[in-house]
C-alpha cells in the first residue's frame, strides 16, 4: 500500500476519506438557476420507492426550501403551495445517469446542454455525468465550469462533468485532476479513448487514488477492436461486418483490474457488454478490489440480431452482443454485481446515421427511453421495481460519491413521479432530445414520467 506525505493510506475502498482533502468541492453540483425560490409542495397518495432508505410503501412526501421536509405525515402546520396527486403513480428519487453526452461544447449540431437536459428532465433524470470527450476536452477547469454554468442557466438537471484522466485524453500525460475536482469534476474518465501505455494508466490511477478520486474506464483494447463495428459472431459473419471480439473488452478489463489492484484506485467500469467481463468483475470483487460497473440500458434489451437489415440505429459501441450475453447482463443487474444502469445517451444529427452501416456514427439518443426500458425488464419479471429504481438512483449515486438519489428528510428534493401504466409512442410529439437516433423510434412503451422535480422545483410536467 502506498503512503502519502500525510502518512495516511490511500483509500481504495469507497466511503473512506480521501488521503488529501481538496477543500471546497461543492457537495452538490449546481442545478437550479439562482434567485428562484422553491415552494412548498406535497406529493400525496403515491407509491414511494426510495431504495437508499429501503422504502417501498404508500407514503406522502413533503418538500420545502428545495429539500425533503418529511416522509409520511406532514409536519404540524405545514401548508403546501401545491399538492401533487400521485394516485396510482410511483414517487422515487430522480434518476442519475452516469453517462450522457450533451454535445456541448463543440458539437451543438447534435445537441446542446439546454436541449439534452430538457430531454433528461422528461425522462425523470435529475443528475447526469457527461464524459470529457467534448470539444474542447474537459481537461481544464474552464471547460468544466462552462458546462456547469450553462447547465445551471438551463435549470433542467444537475450536470456533473467527468474530468479527463489524461491531458487531451491522449493517454500520455496526467490531467490536473485535483484542479478539475475543485472545478466540479466528481470523477475522472478516459471516455472511449485508449491508454495504450500501461505505465501511464498506472500513474493516472495512482494519482487519482491520492485524492480518493474515482476513475471511470470503458475497457476496450484498440488493437482488438480495430475497425470493428459489430459483435464478432454469427451475425457479423453473415453480414460481412468487421467484428469486435469479446476479447477487445475482456483483455482491457483484465489489464485495468490488475492495475486497479496494484494502485488501490477506486475504478468504475462503464458499459460492460459481455458475460465474460462479468465473470472477471465478480472475481475481482471477491478479491476485495474496489471496482464497480454499469451497463447501458439498451444492452439489456437488444442483441446482435437487431442489426439484421443493416439497421444503423443499432450501430452501438460497445456492440450489441449475443442473447446469452444480454441475459448474463440482466442477471448481474438483478444481483447488484452491476450496480448502475445508464442511458449512454449519444444524440446525433440525422446525417450521422445516413450512410452504409460501418460509416455511420455509433450511439443512440436514450435519455427518454431509460425508464421505459427498465420497466420492460420489470414487466418481463427480470427485475422487481425497487431494484430497477435502485440501479438508476442509489447505485450510481454511490459511484459518483455525491449525496444524491436519496429521499431522506434534509436531502435535495430531486424526484421523479411516473405513471407505470401510461402508454406512449416514441415520436416527434413526445421526443425532446435533439437527436432522434433511436432504434425505438415509433415504438410503443408503457411507463411515463408525470413530474420531475429538481431541488423542489418542477422542471418537467407531462402535458395531458
Amino acid at each position, binding site marked *: 500500500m502506498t503512503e502519502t506525505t500525510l502518512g495516511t493510506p490511500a483509500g481504495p475502498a469507497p466511503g473512506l476519506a480521501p488521503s488529501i482533502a481538496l477543500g471546497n468541492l461543492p457537495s452538490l453540483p449546481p442545478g437550479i438557476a439562482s434567485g428562484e425560490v422553491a415552494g412548498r409542495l406535497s406529493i400525496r397518495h403515491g407509491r414511494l420507492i426510495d431504495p437508499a432508505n429501503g422504502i417501498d410503501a404508500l407514503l406522502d412526501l413533503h418538500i420545502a426550501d428545495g429539500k425533503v421536509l418529511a416522509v409520511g405525515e406532514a409536519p404540524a402546520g405545514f401548508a403546501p403551495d401545491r399538492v401533487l396527486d400521485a394516485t396510482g403513480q410511483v414517487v422515487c428519487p430522480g434518476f442519475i445517469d452516469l453517462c450522457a453526452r450533451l454535445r456541448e461544447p463543440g458539437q451543438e449540431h447534435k445537441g446542446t446542454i439546454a436541449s439534452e437536459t430538457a430531454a433528461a428532465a422528461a425522462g425523470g433524470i435529475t443528475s447526469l455525468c457527461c464524459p470529457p470527450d467534448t470539444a474542447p476536452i474537459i481537461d481544464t477547469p474552464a471547460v468544466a465550469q462552462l458546462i456547469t454554468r450553462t447547465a445551471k442557466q438551463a435549470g433542467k438537471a444537475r450536470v456533473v462533468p467527468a474530468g479527463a484522466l489524461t491531458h487531451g485524453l491522449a493517454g500520455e500525460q496526467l490531467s490536473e485532476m485535483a484542479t478539475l475536482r475543485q472545478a466540479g469534476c466528481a470523477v475522472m474518465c478516459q471516455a472511449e479513448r485508449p491508454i495504450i501505455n500501461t505505465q501511464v494508466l498506472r500513474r493516472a490511477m495512482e494519482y487519482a487514488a491520492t485524492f480518493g478520486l474515482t476513475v471511470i474506464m470503458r475497457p476496450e483494447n484498440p488493437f482488438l477492436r480495430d475497425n470493428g463495428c459489430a459483435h*464478432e*459472431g454469427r451475425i457479423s*459473419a*453473415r453480414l*460481412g461486418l468487421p467484428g469486435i471480439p469479446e476479447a477487445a473488452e475482456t483483455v482491457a478489463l483484465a489489464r485495468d483490474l490488475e492495475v486497479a489492484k496494484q494502485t488501490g484506485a477506486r475504478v468504475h467500469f462503464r458499459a460492460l457488454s459481455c458475460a465474460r467481463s462479468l465473470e472477471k468483475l465478480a472475481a475481482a470483487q471477491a478479491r476485495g478490489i474496489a471496482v464497480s460497473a454499469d451497463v447501458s440500458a439498451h444492452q439489456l434489451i437488444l442483441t446482435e440480431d437487431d442489426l439484421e437489415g*443493416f439497421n444503423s440505429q443499432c450501430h452501438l459501441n460497445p456492440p450489441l452482443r449475443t442473447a446469452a450475453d444480454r441475459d448474463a447482463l440482466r442477471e448481474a443487474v438483478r444481483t447488484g454485481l452491476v450496480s448502475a444502469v445508464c442511458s449512454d445517451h449519444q444524440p446525433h444529427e440525422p*446525417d450521422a446515421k*445516413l450512410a*452504409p*452501416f460501418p460509416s455511420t456514427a455509433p450511439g443512440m439518443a436514450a435519455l427518454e427511453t431509460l425508464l421505459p426500458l427498465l420497466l420492460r425488464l420489470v414487466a418481463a419479471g427480470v427485475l422487481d421495481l425497487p431494484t430497477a429504481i435502485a440501479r438508476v438512483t442509489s447505485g450510481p449515486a454511490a459511484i459518483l460519491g455525491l449525496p444524491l438519489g436519496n429521499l431522506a428528510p434534509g436531502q435535495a428534493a430531486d424526484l421523479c413521479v411516473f405513471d407505470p401504466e401510461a402508454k406512449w409512442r416514441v415520436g416527434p410529439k413526445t421526443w425532446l432530445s435533439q437527436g432522434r437516433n433511436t432504434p425505438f423510434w415509433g415504438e410503443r412503451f408503457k411507463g411515463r414520467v408525470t413530474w420531475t422535480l429538481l431541488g423542489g422545483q418542477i422542471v418537467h410536467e407531462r402535458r395531458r
Partner: protein
Amino acid sequence: MPPPNIQLDDQGHLKHFLTLEGLSRELLIKILDKTEGFLGVARQAVKKVPLCRGKTVANLFFETSTRTRTTFELAAKRLSADVLTLNIAASSTSKGETLLDTLRNLEAMHVDMFVVRHAESGAAHFIAQHVAPGVSVINAGDGRHSHPTQGMLDMFTIRRHKGDFSRLTVAIVGDILHSRVARSQLAALRTLGAGEVRIIAPRTLLPAEPESLGARVFHDLREGVRDADVVIMLRLQRERMRGAMLPSEHEYFQLFGLTEERLATAKPDAIVMHPGPINRGVEMDSQVADGPRSVILEQVSNGIAVRMAVMALCIGTQNRLAQVDAHD
C-alpha cells in the same frame, strides 16, 4: 421480428438484387432458368434484345473493378438500355459529397437502375432504402457482405456442369473472412440444397462461428477437397500479409495453393472455379488455372447472361408496378 425483405415487392417479385439471403429456392432457380435463355444472345449476329429499351442504367463504382463493371455494362447494353458508368472512387466522394447526395443527383437525371459497387458492407441496402420508388438497385459487391450476381453466375456454372445440387460436394478455399463472393456462394448453396459445403482456410481468414454459414470447416487443403465435385478458389488480397493475417504468400501457396497434385484427391471430373482476377502462384498454379478442369473463363461469359437475367427481372417488376400505379 425480422425486417421485411426490401428486395421483393408485395407479390414476391424481385425489385432490387442486394443479397441472396432471404430469396427462395424457386426465385434462384427462376434466375438460373432465365440466364439459360440469355446465353444465346451472345451468339446472335445482333447481340441485343429490347427488354430494357428506353431505360437508363447507371453503374456506380465506388470501388475499382474491371470485370464486374464491364460485364454489367455489356449486360445492360445487350438489353438495349442506355448505360452510364461512373467511377466515383476518384470523383465526388473525394470532394466530400455524401453517398446520399451523389445518389440524389443521379436520381435527378431519371435513372431507372443503379448498379452499385462499394467498399462497405450494407452499402447496397442503404442505397435501396433511399432511392425513389421505381428505381432498382443491383448490388455489384458491397464490402465483405455480398456479391449476388457473382454468386448466381457461379451457381449457373455449377448447374451447367453438374446438374442436381443435392448430390454435390463443394469446397471453397481461401479468404472467407473478407470475401463477399464466398458469402453469396454459401447463401446460394444453402438455399439450393447443396449436398455438402466445405470451407478451407487458416483460422485467420475465417469469420467467427464459420459453421453458422452452413459449411464444414477444414484447415487442410487435401482433406478439404477430397471427393469434391466443385473446388472454388478465392482471391487473396495482398493486404492480408500486412494485417498479420498471413506470414507470406509463399507459405500460403505451400498450404492452400491449388496444384494438380493437391487436386488429385478431388473427384476426377471436379471443376475448378475462381471469381478472378487470379494471383497465379498464390491461389493456384497456372497448370490448374489453364487446365482442363478450369471453368474460370466460362464463369466470365456466364456472368453477362446472369446479369442480364437479374436486370430484366428487376425492370420487369418495376414495369408491372408502374402499370398498377397507372390503373389506380
